[in-house]
Structures are given as structure tokens and as C-alpha cells.
């Protein structure tokens, strides 16, 4: 069975840079307004997963969570975390290095 979540080499490279700068990390898949539907990369412990979150897997050694209802509504896709140039407008850490993570669902 394919892994529920993976990352491209470029995304893994940014993740390791952010880990070096900020310590252990966590991903939460977002939804809704503005920069919704982006994967948010936060410091571990910044937003402890709640009872409604599903742990889909790890990218590198970073756990990836999504809201269970959202996961169902999206049809349980496979997620590939990639990176694109330019900072997005969010609390996600990669904005500090002028890139933004994106979620592909092949």
C-alpha cells in the first residue's frame, strides 16, 4: 500500500533546514480561507494534535496531521508535500525562508 503522506526531495531539504533552525516540527494540513489548504509547518508542541486529528504518517521524521472530517471530505487522498518559491501568508515556518509548502494529491 502506498504511504498516505510523502515529501519531495526539495521539501525534505527545506524541512531539514527548518529543523536545524527551530528544532522538532509538526505538520497540520489546513483548510478554509486565504491560505487554507496549505500544509502548516509548526514547532512541535505549538499546536498539540486534538481528538479530531488523524496522524497520516511522517515526512522525514516530522509527523503529519489532518482533521479527520476534512480527510473524509477530501476523499482520503494520498498527500505529497512539495515546496514552491515565495513566502505564503501564514504562521507556517517556511515563510521565514521565502518559500511555501504545498500539498499535492496525485
Amino acid at each position, binding site marked *: 500500500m502506498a504511504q498516505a503522506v510523502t515529501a519531495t526531495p526539495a521539501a525534505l531539504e527545506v524541512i531539514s533546514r527548518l529543523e536545524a533552525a527551530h528544532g522538532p516540527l509538526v505538520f497540520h494540513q489546513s483548510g*478554509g480561507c486565504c491560505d487554507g489548504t*496549505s500544509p502548516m509547518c509548526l514547532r512541535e508542541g505549538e499546536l498539540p494534535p486534538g481528538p479530531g486529528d488523524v496522524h497520516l504518517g511522517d515526512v522525514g521524521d516530522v509527523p503529519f496531521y489532518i482533521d479527520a472530517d476534512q480527510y473524509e471530505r477530501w476523499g482520503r487522498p494520498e498527500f505529497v508535500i512539495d515546496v514552491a518559491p*515565495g513566502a505564503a*501568508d*501564514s504562521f507556517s515556518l517556511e515563510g521565514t525562508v521565502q518559500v511555501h509548502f504545498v500539498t*499535492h494529491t496525485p
Partner: protein
Amino acid sequence: MELKERYDNFIGGEWIAPTTREYRENLTPATGQPFCEVAHSAPADIELALDAAHAAKDAWGSRSPAERAAVLDAVADAIEENLEMLAVAESYENGKPVRETINADIPLAVDHFRYFADAARAEEGRISEIDDQTYAYHFHEPLGVVGQIIPFNFPLLMAAWKIAPALAAGNCTVLKPASPTPWSILKLAEVVGDIVPAGVLNIVNGPGAEIGRALASNKRIAKIAFTGETVTGRLIMSYAAQNLIPSTTELGGKSPNIFFEDVMAADDAFLDKAIEGLVLYAFNKGEVCTCPSRALIHESIYDGFMARCLERIRAIKQGHPLDIATMIGAQVSTAQLEKIEGYVKIGREEGAEVLIGGERPSLGAELDGGYYYEPTVLKGHNKMRVFQEEIFGPVLAVTTFRDEAEALEIANDTLYGLGAGVWTRDGSRAFRMGRAIKAGRVWTNCYHQYPAHAAFGGYKSSGVGRENHRMMLEHYSQTKCLLVSYDPNPLGFF
């Protein structure tokens, strides 16, 4: 319009360089070209702004309601006097058509300050008579210093929605604009900077992960207000929980716009209005939390009604946002543009039919560097991802329904509940539907109207709290109860 090379933070009534001494290029979505630089601040700059706000809060909080109202009215007048300049700034930085900013964004911002000036003066406490010798007097007192995080889609109007009630209730604010749109709010500060007392309004620009977090999690704010996406909404609420302060969050939606068969009962002004009501998904290039992004059309009128709507969509003029004839401009950033393209691809893959659009247009010359996307309509069904996820672009997902019960079921089959539209000539049905839809705002035979004095906010995952109504004064106030006994006699316990 005056355009400087670089813009500092606005703190304590002064223009202050960021402690980092760093600036970032600010682009216009119209061409993708940079046009100025804006402060790239650090958490230390948030602390400076909080210092200024705390220094100002006692004097501002003790001003009489009439004095505070006079300041808000003067802000409204100054914005009105500079309406065209601010409309152009807003359009150029965000990519939205200038005809929208001239006729909607800026006039609404003006009215918002006037509304809260009046509301603050009309505010009164309540007295509860506990018994004939015991009375509870309730007073509103300012919270003190609040933090406010503004989205990129209506930078000036959303700032007005947040600043006006906060200041009217006697608070000072530290504002963090959205990273793609840091500049138009600074043009607003140039216009109103001498009117608002120093330290009452402070604006700090920089990355959300650093200064947004430094503001939202700060122990020196008494409330945090946020508009944006769901994970940051959860973050904001968890920071507020850790500091035991209130928060308001507005987190978007996937709003249904429902057209019953009697819409087509006559070919008249009402039908014309309903057609425009569907096409309003392209307003502000779809970058609206309440974008009517799901159209539900009764199956008996689908072919005829949709044909009329597609004709109207084909007539949308796309171009440079500053061209007064332009009806749809550019998306705010390449990130948004990529997201829209990604969703249209997902829609095609899951079997949605592209009725119109679905591509990036070629507008020629300098505009080819801009972030444009054609107004697009996808036909499918409500279980598709393009019906469930907020695209935040000019992409409409359309489907049909058999009867009122099915329309309601589809309308409510979403994680969100911010806006909805109901179009019918049957007043009873409009009322039934309006009450049954789980959304904070149900436009009935209209859409995308945002007058002050009409509460706005979400059900379900669309956030917690309301804006745009005088009830906001309570959200930005403490309630003080003086419980007074006029009875000379002791209780008798001891």
C-alpha cells in the same frame, strides 16, 4: 499618489524602522513586479508596538464616548477625502478591480468608522433591580490593548472592521497586516496618523510565523482577532486559551448559493438580479471568505438559467486592476494562482465538466507577468473536492437539486457555515431555507452586501464570533458590575 521606496512600521504615531533593519519587496499582482519595500520585522518590533499601545491605553480609555466618536468620525472623513487614492492603492497592491474599491471597499470602510462612532455614543449600561434596596449597575470598560491580524483579501475593509470597534470601545490596537498586502494599510496610516492619538493604532509588518505568533501569543494583549485559515485559527484560539484571553476567528467557507425554479418565472429585473447573484462568485476574483462558490440550481431551470449565467460570465472583462472597465483583476499571489490551477486540475480529474474558463488568460504585454485566472465554472456533484474545499479564486462549482429538501441537504453538507444565498419569489420558502441553513449569514434575494449593522460571522468550522455590528462593542469590552446595597441593615450571618 506619493510612493516611497520603503515603508517602516507605524508605532506610537511615528514611522519606526524595524529593529532588523530588513525590508522585503512588495509586488503588485497586476504585473508581478515589485513597487516598494516594506519592513520585515521581528518579535522585538511587536514589543515596541505593545509598549506604545500600553503607554496610550489609559488616556484613550478614559476619553469620553463623544471624544472617541469625534476621532472615529474624523478618520472616516479623512478616508473619504482620500477615497480615490486609497482605492487605487488597494487595487494596485491586492489586484482587485479599482471599480470595486471605489464603489465598495473604501466607502464601506468610511461607513464602518461612522457606524462605530455613532454606536459608541449610543452605548449604555444596564441596571438590574435585584430588590428594592439592591441594584446591579453594569458598565462597559475597555479591554486595554488588543492584537488584530488582517487578511489579504480586503486589506483596508477588514482593517476597518477590526480597528473601528476596538477603538470605539476605548482600546488600543497592534495590527499585523497580511504579508502579501502590507502597504495599503500604511497609506491609510499616512492619512489618519495625525488624527488618531499616538499609540492608539500601531501597525507592524513581517512574517506571520514570527511576528504574527509574537503578537497572538503575547501576554500583553487582552484579546486577539484573526481572519484566515483553520489551522492558524486553532493556533490563535490555543494561544488565547494559554493566556486566558478572548479571541474571535473568521475562517472561511464554501458558501452555497441556491436558485429555486420560480427565479425563472418571469424574465424581469429579479431574474437579472439572480443571474448577477450567481456571477458574484467572481467578485474580488473569488478571494472572499463568503464567495458563493457552490451554486445549487433547481433541475427544471438548470439549462435555461445556466445559459443566461454563462452569457453574463463571458461578458466579464478581465484586465489591469486599475483600468476602471476591468471587472476581474489578478489573484493576490503566485501561491493563490497555483492553488487555483491545482484545484481546477483536481476537478477535471474527478470528473467535473468545465463549462467556461479553466485556464490562465493571456492578456498581453506587461500583464503576462501578473497573476490572472479566467472566471471558471465546474459542473459536478457535492461530494467532489471542488465542492468541499475553499479554492479562494474565481471558480464556481455548480450542481442541481430536485426539491427543497435536497437543496437544504446539499447546502448543509459542508464543514463550513459562513455565508449562503437563497433566491426565490416565494417569501415563505425563503424564510424556511434561511432559518434551516447552518450559516451565520444567509443573503436572501441578494448576495455580497456588507452593510455595517448586519452581523457577520460563522457557524461550524467557519470560526467563532461576529463582526460588523454594534455587538462588537461588547466583544471589545469588559463588563463591570457594581453591586450596590442601599439597605442599612446587616445580613445577619455573623
